[in-house]
Every structure is written in C-alpha cells, then in structure tokens.
C-alpha cells in the first residue's frame, strides 16, 4: 500500500489494511436529478478486526457494502474512487469471472434479510452444495464437512439443520445458516449487512457472540453494517459513523463511544434509552433522517439538525480530519464541542 495513505488504527503499530476505500462516490440517477448516495468516502478496513459501519436509513451504509463487492446496480453508479483489496487490486475494475471469484471465496457476504434469501424448495445442505458447485469447489464432501463443523460451532445440530428445508428453521437458525453459507468457502473477509435486525434480543446476543468468536478463530476481517449502536458497541473494534453518504466520524469503538466528537454521534448516543442510570438524560434528536433528494450541495450535511451550527457550516463541507491518534471527525465546530 502507498506510504501516503493514512491508517485509521495507527494507535496500533501492527495494524494492516485489508481493504482501502478512496474517494468513493456513488451517484443515483433518477428522474428528478442525480443524488450522491456516497460522497468521497475514504476508509481503511483493518485486517483481522471488526469494523462497524453505522448510520440511519439514507446514510449510504448499504450502498457502501455493495460498492465493496462491486455490486452497485442501476440506477446507482460508481462515478469516482477505488476499493483496493490487498492482493486483489481495485475491485471496481474486476469483471466477469474474476469478480465471481472475488465475491464468495474472498469476501463472504450475509445480506440484509438474508434469512429469507434461501430457496424454499431445496434442503439447506443441497443449497450449500450448489454454492460449492458454482464456485468450482472440487470436493463436495469436504464442503459439507466444513458446513457441519460451522453448524456445530453455532450451537446447531448439523444432521438436523442441513437436511431441513428453510421453513423448518427458526429465524435465528436461518440467520446463522446465512453466516455459514458466507463462511463455508473460507473467505478472509466477512461482510455482514444488518445481521441481527429481524432477530429477538436473546437470539441477537447469541448470534453476536458467535460472530465475535468465529471472527477470532478464523482470523477474519469483519465488516458489520448496522443501524444499532448497541450492536456496534458490543462487537466492533473500529467504528465508522455515516450520515447522508459521508463518513462523519471514525475511530476505535472504545474511544469513539467514550469521547464522541461529532455532534451527530453525540446526539445519537444520547438518544438511546438505557437500562440503568437517569432516564431524563436521554434527549431526542431534532429533525428527520437524511433524505437523499434534499441533501444540500454545499456545506455540512448535518447542519440542519445540529445545535453547534455556525455560518461556516452553510458554505464549506468539513473534511474528515484527525483529532486524536486514529480518531477522525468531519466537523468545523469540533473544538467547541469538547467543552
């Protein structure tokens, strides 16, 4: 990787970059104009760590996930930027066969609502074999053996779940099956888009526990896309906060949660009711979540909901700047917020 590239986790000397996103811009072309779903996103995904990408609806987090797979579909279009993977080069340049061998064997993905993505007419085990066939996996028995190991690892009875049809499994089991299908080809990167959204609290905590331990066991690089700060806080090492297609804050989860520097991050953390402590501390965030059609072309995207708004915010979009070792914030007023 180039020497001029900043590494977000540079507090950690050994941090290596697995995936490097530079100036990534995705435009959605519609009848009423062009809207940037991602606007010059710069990001380093650190190897063997869990990076969480968090944001509300319309923040561009799922588009970012698709762009990492070079999967942005019409009417969206990547107009600028690159997604470099160590050893694989710019993913956005991959086509055809090379792309197919990238998606799956290199980056295993669990898409949003993937518990409903299985073929209802085929047994789960068969679908895993199909997966192996489409990736020219030579030894089907080994593949099933791997799936059995993973199922056992995830507290499921392999002989039961692999011979079952999807409707015979509970939501939590299907979600874990989705993770197994993403991992069975032994990728080195695991991309999870809202992996626990439709799950119960108890199942969610168990699935998160499994994700964390499998991540450690298999030395994966995990990218977790979610809207839930709690999920982020529970499992991730690094956090990337997105708002209206821009990265507004990024850093280690511990530092960012303890000392959030962007007004949006602060407001969202304060808007979550907690189980203990004073409930009157919780404050709702004013305004509505970002609507892509109404994002101002100039200035800060968050200013209409921001209590630290200054004249400068209307004119110039703030750049993502380092405020601490490995902690980046895009805010003009960052210095004032500290006090």
């Amino acid at each position: 990787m180039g020497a001029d590239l900043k590494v977000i986790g540079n507090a950690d000397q050994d941090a290596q970059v697995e995936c490097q996103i530079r100036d990534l811009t995705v435009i959605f072309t519609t009848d009423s104009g062009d809207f940037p779903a991602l606007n010059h996103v710069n990001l380093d995904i650190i190897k063997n760590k869990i990076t969480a990408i968090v944001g509300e609806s319309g923040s561009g987090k799922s588009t970012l996930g698709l762009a990492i797979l070079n999967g942005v579909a019409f009417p969206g279009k990547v107009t600028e930027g690159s997604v470099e993977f160590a050893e694989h080069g710019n993913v956005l340049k991959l086509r055809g066969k090379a792309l197919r061998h990238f998606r799956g064997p290199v980056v295993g993905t669990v898409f949003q609502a993937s518990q409903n993505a299985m073929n209802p007419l085929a047994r789960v085990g068969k679908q895993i074999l199909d997966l192996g066939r489409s990736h020219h996996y030579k030894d089907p028995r080994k593949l099933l053996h791997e799936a059995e190991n993973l199922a056992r690892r995830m507290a499921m009875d392999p002989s039961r779940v692999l011979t079952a049809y999807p409707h015979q499994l509970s939501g939590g089991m299907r979600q874990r099956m989705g993770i197994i299908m993403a991992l069975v080809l032994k990728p080195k990167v695991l991309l999870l888009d809202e992996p626990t959204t439709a799950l119960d609290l108890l199942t969610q905590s168990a699935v998160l526990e499994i994700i964390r331990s499998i991540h450690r066991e298999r030395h994966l690089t995990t990218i977790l896309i979610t809207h839930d700060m709690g999920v982020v806080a529970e499992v991730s090492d690094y956090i990337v906060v997105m708002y209206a297609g821009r990265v507004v804050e990024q850093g280690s989860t511990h530092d960012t949660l303890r000392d959030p520097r962007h007004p949006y991050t602060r407001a969202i953390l304060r808007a979550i009711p907690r189980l203990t402590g004073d409930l009157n501390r919780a404050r709702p965030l004013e305004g509505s979540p970002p609507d892509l059609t109404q994002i101002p072309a100039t200035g800060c995207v968050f200013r209409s909901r921001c209590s630290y708004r200054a004249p400068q915010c209307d004119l110039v979009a703030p750049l993502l700047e380092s405020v601490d070792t490995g902690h980046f914030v895009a805010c003009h007023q960052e210095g004032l917020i500290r006090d």
Partner: protein
Amino acid sequence: MIEVRKLEKVYPPVVGGLLSHNEVRALRGVSLSISDGGALSIIGESGCGKTTFGRILAGLESYSGGDIAMDGVALNSLPNNERQPYFRRIQLIHQDPYTALNPSHTILHAMAVPLRIQAKLQKKNDDWILNRSKELLAMVGLDPVGTLYKYPHALSGGQRQRVVIARALTVDPKILVADEAVSMIDVSMRLSILNLLSDLRVRLRIGIVFITHDVAAARYIAKDGELCVLYRGEVVEYGQTDEIIVRPVHPYTQAMLSAMPVLRGLEEAGPDRYIPLEGMDDFEGQGSGCLFAPRCRHATARCQEQHPDLVPWDDRLSSSSHHHACFYPIPRNVVARPINRENAL
C-alpha cells in the same frame, strides 16, 4: 381501569396439508391490570404471546378463556354488539407505519374515516372533522396544514407513526396498545415517539400498554409503571419497572436483561451477565414442569416435574407488587452500569 383475568388463547390444531401444526397455546392464563393513565410494558421474545395479548385487548382477536373487565364491567357478560364500544376505547398501534396507512389516501382521508363515525355519534358537522384532524395532528407534533393533504409516501417513518397515533386518538381511547411501535423507526427518531406516548399519557390520561422486546424502551415508557415478562404465554415476572431491572429473580428475565448490548467505553457489564448459547432453539419443552426449564441453567429435577405458579416475592427489600414464577428466586445483577466520568454526555 382494565383488568385482565386468566386470559387464555388457544389456536386450534390444523390437521393435514403443508401447514399442519399442533394446537398452539399462545396465552396460558395471563392476569394483568392497567390503571387509568398508567403504563405497562410487556417484554418477551417473538412467539411469547405478547402480540396476541395486544390484539385481544384491542378486540381484534377472540380469546379462549378468562375475562376482561373494563371499569368493573365484565365483557364476558355482555352480548357481542355491546362489547364493541368498550373495545373501541382500546386502540392498537402497529409496528409498521409503512403498511398501516393506505398509500392511495391522503392523511386527511385516513383521519376522516374514523372521525366521520364519531361526528355522526356526536352529531357534529364536516367542519368539526377537519378541525379535529388538525387538532390531533398538532397534538402529535406534526404541522397540520403541511401534513393534511400529503400522501403517506411523502412522510418519513417517524412522521407516519405520528399520523397512526393521531388516527388512534380520533376515537378518544382510554388505552393505547403500542405493539413494537418504534422498532421500525430510525434510531434518531425513536426517542421522540416514546416521548410523545409518555406525553399523551400525562396530557390525556391515556393508559399505555407498550409491547416490545427492547427492554430499554420498555423501561423508558414505564419508568413509573410496571414491567411484565412473558414467556411462552405465561407471565414469569411482574413488578415495578426499575425493581425488575435492578433485581430480577427469574432466570428468563435475567437472560433477557443480559442480552441488552453493553455500550463498551460508557458502561460495564453487570457481574452476573450470562448469555445462553445452548438451547436457544429448544422452544418445545415437554412435560408438566416449568416451561423455561429446558433452557434454564439453574433448573433442577423439581423444575422438570412441577410447574411454578406466579407468587409474590417475599423479600424484605421488594415491593408488594413484585411477582415471579420460579422455585428458586435469586436476584442477580445482570444489567450494565454506566461508568462514571467527569465528561459525561
């Protein structure tokens, strides 16, 4: 005041065909009461019967046993057509504000349909319908003039949920049953919807039954009310909200509270926090014992054989309302504690 006594709901078995299933006992003798202007949060996993309970309260579902009494009138004793006005006073707010509003009708239309019936009953004219719509939309924090002629697609999820709440208010309800009312709304908007519900409770003395799996939201709504934990159609623990959260005695309540994510850096996990990985799929406990026994790590032979009833917890420190259904009630400290910092948010 609404009292629910030993409410039972059994979905009959379906025999033959693809969708055959055994009899499902959704509610197994649930007794609860909601005072006027009170707040009750019901928590539990999916399949615990919490949605069925809400639907029965709102009159959308029949019940197989037990009784509901409203202001002392037992609804079982009334003929069907006389029950309706009672059930009308309990309104349900659904989880999904995207499907709760007809996309081809304006907000005014959505509001006017129930109001027209009210206008007829109260002998009011059309102006009253318009004015009342505006008044209700303003009450839920929307701009009446800007919202009235919009279609649902032009509103955000939070705004739609406010419209749904305003529509529920058209019939002057005594109780709002909010079934996962904020789980589909963006995180930054959730708190303001919760605040709206609490605000309506104070201003209009409307009781709130808040059904959720998010314990923190349940606490937020029922901070001065009660919390009820349902497991497979049974109340396993019940009492003042903060007492249940700080001193839960049922292992299932403890598991639910443990599952709440800890904001690392801001909070530290409770010392007794335990997340069960095993047995998360074994829902079908057999036999006559405690329903939670197959998943419980504290279960003994007695739990497998006998069924614990809901009894008051007689402990010096507990309030009289704290009830539990466990043979071995031991309070455990499972919830996360905020870490004290000078620079607190």
